[in-house]
C-alpha cells in the first residue's frame, strides 16, 4: 500500500466567489504507517481527507493509491467521520456488518467478522443495542469497527474523537494506538489536537490556513511503551511545545 499526494490543489466556487482551500499539498503514506494532519479550523484538513476518500475531486494535482489515481470512493479507503455516522435504525452489530453486506460477502463470513471486530473494539456485549443506546465513545468505536470490517487498505479518521469529552478522548486515543499496533492497519488521522497527533502518529504534518498548505512535517520518534507516562515525558513535552509555537505563529494576530 502506498498513498501518494502530490501538489494537490483545491478551490471551491467560481469567479469572484472562488476560494482557494488547498495549495500544493504533498505527502505520502506507506503501509503500516500512522500519519496525522494537524491544523486549525478551516485549514483544509477535511478537504484533504475527502479528496483521498474520493468524495470530492481535486482542482489539480495527484492523489493515487498504489500508483492508480483515485477517481471515486471505494472500500479500499475506509472513513470515520467526526460526527456520529452510525445508521440509527441498525444495531451495533448490523452497523458493523453493513459494509460487508454491501460488498456481498457470504453470510458466514459476515457473522464471523462482525463478532470479531466488535470484540476488537470491546463492544461484544453491546452487539444488539441501537446507536442511541450507546455513549459517544462507544458509537465511534462501532464506526471504527465498521470501517475496519470492510477491510480497507487505509483508514481515514476525520477528528474521530472531536466530539468526546476529555477523559473518554484519552482512553479512545490509547485504544486507537493499541488497535493500530495490534492490527497493523495504515491510518491517516486528522485532528486539531497536537497532543493527540504526537501521541499516535509516526509522522505529523502541520497545516496552515488560507490557503491550506503543509508548513512543517516531523517524524515523531517517541517511546510509546507507556502511553500514560508519554504524555508527561520530557521529549514529548518539548516536541509539543516546539510545534505549538509553530502553530501559534500561523494564527493571524488578534486585534488588541
Amino acid at each position: 500500500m502506498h498513498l501518494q499526494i502530490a501538489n494537490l490543489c483545491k478551490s471551491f466556487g467560481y469567479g469572484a466567489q472562488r476560494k482557494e482551500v488547498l495549495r500544493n499539498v504533498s505527502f505520502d503514506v506507506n503501509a503500516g504507517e500512522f500519519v496525522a494532519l494537524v491544523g486549525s479550523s478551516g485549514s483544509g484538513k477535511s478537504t484533504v481527507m475527502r479528496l483521498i476518500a474520493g468524495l470530492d475531486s481535486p482542482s489539480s494535482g495527484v492523489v493515487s493509491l498504489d500508483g492508480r489515481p483515485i477517481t471515486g470512493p471505494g472500500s479500499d479507503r475506509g472513513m470515520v467521520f467526526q460526527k456520529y455516522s452510525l445508521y440509527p435504525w441498525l444495531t451495533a452489530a448490523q452497523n458493523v456488518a453493513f459494509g460487508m453486506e454491501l460488498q456481498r460477502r457470504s453470510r458466514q463470513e459476515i457473522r464471523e467478522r462482525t463478532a470479531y471486530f466488535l470484540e476488537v473494539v470491546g463492544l461484544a456485549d453491546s452487539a444488539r443495542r441501537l446507536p442511541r443506546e450507546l455513549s459517544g465513545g462507544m458509537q465511534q468505536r462501532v464506526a471504527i469497527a465498521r470501517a475496519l470490517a470492510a477491510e480497507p487498505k487505509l483508514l481515514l479518521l476525520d477528528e474521530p474523537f472531536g466530539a468526546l469529552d476529555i477523559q473518554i478522548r484519552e482512553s479512545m486515543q490509547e485504544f486507537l494506538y493499541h488497535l493500530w499496533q495490534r492490527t497493523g492497519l495504515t491510518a491517516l488521522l486528522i485532528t486539531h489536537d497536537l497532543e493527540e497527533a504526537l501521541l499516535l502518529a509516526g509522522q505529523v504534518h502541520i497545516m496552515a490556513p488560507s490557503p491550506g498548505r503543509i508548513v512543517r512535517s516531523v517524524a515523531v520518534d517517541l517511546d510509546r511503551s507507556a502511553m500514560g507516562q508519554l504524555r508527561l515525558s520530557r521529549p514529548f513535552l518539548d516536541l509539543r511545545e516546539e510545534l505549538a509555537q509553530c502553530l501559534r505563529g500561523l494564527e493571524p494576530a488578534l486585534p488588541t
Partner: protein
Amino acid sequence: MPAFRRLIRHPWALGILGIGIVLLLWFLIAASGTVNKLFLPSPQAVWQAGQQQWSSGLLLKDAAASIQRVFIGFALSAGLALPVGIAMGTNVVICRLLEPLMGLIRYMPAPAFIPLLIIYFGLEELPKVLLIFIGTFFFNTLMIMDAVKFVPRELVETALTLGGRGLPILTRVVAPFIAPQVLDTYRINMASAWNLVIVAELVAATEGLGKRISLAQRFLKTDEIFMGLIVIGLIGLVIDLGFRALMRRACAWAT
C-alpha cells in the same frame, strides 16, 4: 383514590374524558329541549338513525364506497409520490424542473378541479379517484422530497466509502432513513383524502358517506347528517391509529 390516579394517568384517559364531556353536554342540551330538534338531534336519535342504516345495509355500502375511493386514489398518489419525491430529493435537475410546477399546483384548491374532472370523465368513479389523487399527490411528493434532502450527508458518504454504489444506497440508506417521515406524511395527507372524497360525493355520486349526508340535508334529517359525520370521523381515526401503529412497529428506532 390511588386507583383513580392510576386511571387518570393512562395516556388515553384524558382524551376519553374530553369526548365524554362533549357527549354529556350534547345529551343534556338536547334533553333540555332548549334547542330545536331539527338543529340538534338527541344522541339517541342519531344512534337510532345509525342502527337503521346499519340494518338496511346502507351504512356498510356507503362506507365501503367511500373507503374504496379513498384507498384507490391515495394508493395511486402515495405510490407515485414515493419515486418522484425521491428523484426530486436526490437529483438537482429534476428538483429544479418540477419543484416550481408542483409548488404552483399545490396551491390550487383541489375541489376547484371538480368541474373539469366532471367534464372530462363524467360522473363515474374515475373523477372522484382523480380528485383525491390531485389533492394529495403534490403534498406527498414535496414532503417526501424534503425528507430525502435531510438525509445526513455522512450517512450516504459512509456507505460510499464502504463500497456502496447506486441502488443499494437508495434502498439501504435513504429508504430506511426517510421511512418514518414518509409514513407520517401519508398519515397527515390521508386526512385530506377523506375531506376530498366527501366533497366529491356531495357533488355527484349514487352512494357514499358524503352522498348520504347531502341526501339527508334534502330531507332535513339532521340525525342522519350527525351520524354520517361521526362515522367519517371514526373511520379517519382508525386509519390514523393504524398509521401510528405501523410507524411504531416498523420504525421503532425513530420513536
